[in-house]
């Protein structure tokens, strides 16, 4: 939450600033600092659009194209979600990002006992292709990119997305989906995992392999440092773990005999904007450089376009507070500025009311407007990487690069990312750091406005609550029963049996899932096939 440790004297003068990643900030930076770190323009930065892409992946940045805005949206039934999608598009949003309810994320149908009380609560409920038909009705799927915030069952949801596109007459080659599909980070933070580590990575590999030929405009994996950071990781750890996780997925696809240049260009990243703003800007710049170098040096990637770190920089959830909720509107604006100064391709903001509720239409649009203001009113499209050359920013970027590499090295020494996640090493580390931050807030060593300084809450705004609609859940279950009555049981049994066979024989499951979706097999039925063959992830202990 709070973003740096400040050592002060008795007159409140700052003697030292220690950023979360462990870097000390000096009071003044001069050309001597650039000499000290051995700064070399061509090697460390180069012009935007040139390796190592520190300054950005496009030569003209936001001049050629403003960022894509993609607020996280979805709740209740597919009808309600479709309505909200259209509202956001009407307000100028340029991409979609679908929120799914927890039963969907965990592979349960709406009528499963585990789904009780959760249907349509934190996102849209999905049981069968029928739900996608409703949710994406009148959406130009060949024109608008759609983020699908789904992980453990990303294979199924991506297959369903293809099936609905084809049903509406869009060629799979023209659709651009971005399933989140980063299961290793679910095991570190966010927690929507189902299957054990090894088969879970194999399923990510399946989506990448399949997209290459069938859905080449789709970005099959969005590697999320975001949630790792939300769980207590430092900015340097966020990037280090994200790169190592991406490498684990790459290794899986390479082991199938594919050429890296055929798929790695479609990888994207989802990274967090909250924290000390200088540290975040340096983090994003260093991340672009390290990702490009990782691909070039470790994997011998040839096509320069495949070296791009394309990122959604946004969110900032952990930075928001329940106290004085209106302050979150201002925090969101600063976070958005950080994302824009860092050259995000895509962005989304947590809404000010998220510590209370699912965002109301009003708060979701306010977040969207915050993003639009920067591009259309404040001049963030004027020039690329405007902070380049700053003695401070360049020194910090180089120091961040080193910190990220150190964090990567620690995991490699431990035995690699898969081992570090399976054993719970990273989970325990970030949980401990999260606890240290809470203690820092409690002792006042870390400052947070409205929480431990300027805490007078008088006259704070009332947050309008999004009310959960129990009738929506009943409607969803009724609709599921109807689909089950209407579909051909024979087709369902046949396609599920073929899926089971494919899973057991370790084939790529994607084409089989598309067939299951088209036969209106339910998400739960498909997930159960995987559950039976793979079993479930065993969460490593906290203590």
């Amino acid at each position, binding site marked *: 939450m709070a973003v740096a440790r400040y050592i002060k004297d008795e007159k409140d003068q700052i003697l030292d600033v220690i950023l979360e990643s462990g870097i000390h900030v000096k009071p003044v930076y001069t050309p001597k600092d650039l000499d000290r770190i051995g700064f070399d323009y061509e090697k460390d930065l180069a012009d935007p659009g040139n390796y190592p892409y520190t300054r950005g992946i496009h030569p003209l940045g936001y001049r050629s194209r403003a960022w894509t805005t993609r607020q996280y949206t979805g709740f209740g039934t597919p009808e309600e979600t479709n309505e909200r999608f259209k509202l956001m598009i009407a307000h100028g949003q340029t991409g979609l990002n679908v929120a799914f309810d927890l039963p969907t994320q965990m592979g349960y149908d709406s009528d499963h006992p*585990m789904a009780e009380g959760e249907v349509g609560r934190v996102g849209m409920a999905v049981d069968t292709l029928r739900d996608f038909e409703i949710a994406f009705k009148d959406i130009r799927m060949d024109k608008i990119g759609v983020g699908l915030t789904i992980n453990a069952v990303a294979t199924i949801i991506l297959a369903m997305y293809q099936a609905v596109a084809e049903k509406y007459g869009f060629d799979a080659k023209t659709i651009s989906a971005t399933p989140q599909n980063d299961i290793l980070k679910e095991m570190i933070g966010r*927690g*929507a995992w189902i299957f054990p580590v090894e088969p879970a990575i194999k399923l990510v590999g399946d989506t990448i392999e399949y997209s290459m030929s069938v859905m080449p405009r789709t970005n099959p994996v969005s590697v999320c440092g975001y949630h790792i950071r939300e769980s207590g990781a430092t900015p340097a750890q966020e990037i280090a773990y994200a790169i190592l996780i991406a490498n684990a997925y790459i290794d899986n696809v390479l082991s199938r005999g594919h050429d890296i240049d055929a798929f790695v260009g479609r990888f994207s990243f989802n990274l967090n904007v909250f924290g000390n703003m200088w540290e975040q800007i340096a983090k994003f710049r260093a991340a672009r450089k390290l990702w490009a170098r990782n691909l070039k040096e470790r994997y011998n990637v040839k096509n320069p376009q495949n070296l791009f770190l394309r990122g959604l920089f946004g969110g900032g959830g952990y930075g928001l507070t329940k106290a004085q909720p209106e302050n979150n509107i201002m925090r969101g604006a600063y976070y958005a500025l950080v994302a824009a100064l860092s050259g995000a391709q895509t962005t989304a903001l947590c809404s000010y009311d998220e*510590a209370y*509720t699912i965002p109301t239409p009003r708060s979701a649009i306010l977040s969207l407007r915050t993003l639009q203001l920067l591009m259309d009113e404040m001049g963030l499209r004027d020039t690329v990487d405007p902070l380049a050359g700053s003695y401070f920013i360049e020194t910090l970027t180089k120091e961040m690069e080193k910190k990220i590499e150190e964090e990567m090295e620690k995991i490699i020494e431990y035995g690699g990312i898969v081992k570090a996640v399976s054993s719970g090493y990273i989970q325990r580390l970030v949980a401990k750091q*999260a*606890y240290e931050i*809470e*203690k820092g807030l409690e002792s006042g060593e870390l400052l947070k406005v409205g929480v431990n300084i300027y805490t007078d809450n008088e006259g704070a705004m009332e947050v309008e609550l999004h009310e959960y609609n129990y009738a929506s859940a009943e409607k969803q279950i009724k609709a599921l029963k109807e689909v089950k009555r209407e579909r051909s049981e024979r087709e369902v049994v046949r396609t599920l049996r073929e899926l089971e066979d494919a899973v057991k024989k370790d084939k790529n499951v994607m084409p089989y899932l598309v067939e299951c979706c088209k036969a209106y097999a339910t998400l739960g039925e498909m997930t159960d096939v995987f559950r039976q063959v793979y079993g479930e992830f065993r969460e490593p202990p906290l203590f």
Partner: protein
Amino acid sequence: MEKPVKILIAKPGLDGHDRGAKVIAQALRDAGMEVIYSGLHKTVEQILEMAIEEDVQVIGLSIMTGAHIPITKKVIEKMRERGIEDKLVFVGGVIPAKDIPVLMEMGVAGVFPGGVSLRETIKAIKEKVSVR
């Protein structure tokens, strides 16, 4: 020596947001309590099984999805059925102020919505346990 308070920090249902649960588990342990952490995706039945098996005095439920009312209701009902209503139940998470009296009415010993400090949480649990 006083016997330490034994507490189960539990994540009922499908929600995977566990930062809060893990922070509070560590804080309670540092405050001298014996803490069991349930892990994610536990059914109410599994949580009560654990509570009985470990013989805890306190169950802390961490719920971030907004489903705190149906889940807590089920916990309290099942505890009565199994005759373990002597155990104290606390609820933490994303809990709107208007729901706090509803939860208290159900019989929970305390509610800690986001923003309550570790110190206050520890103090409240210790006080309720000592009264018992």
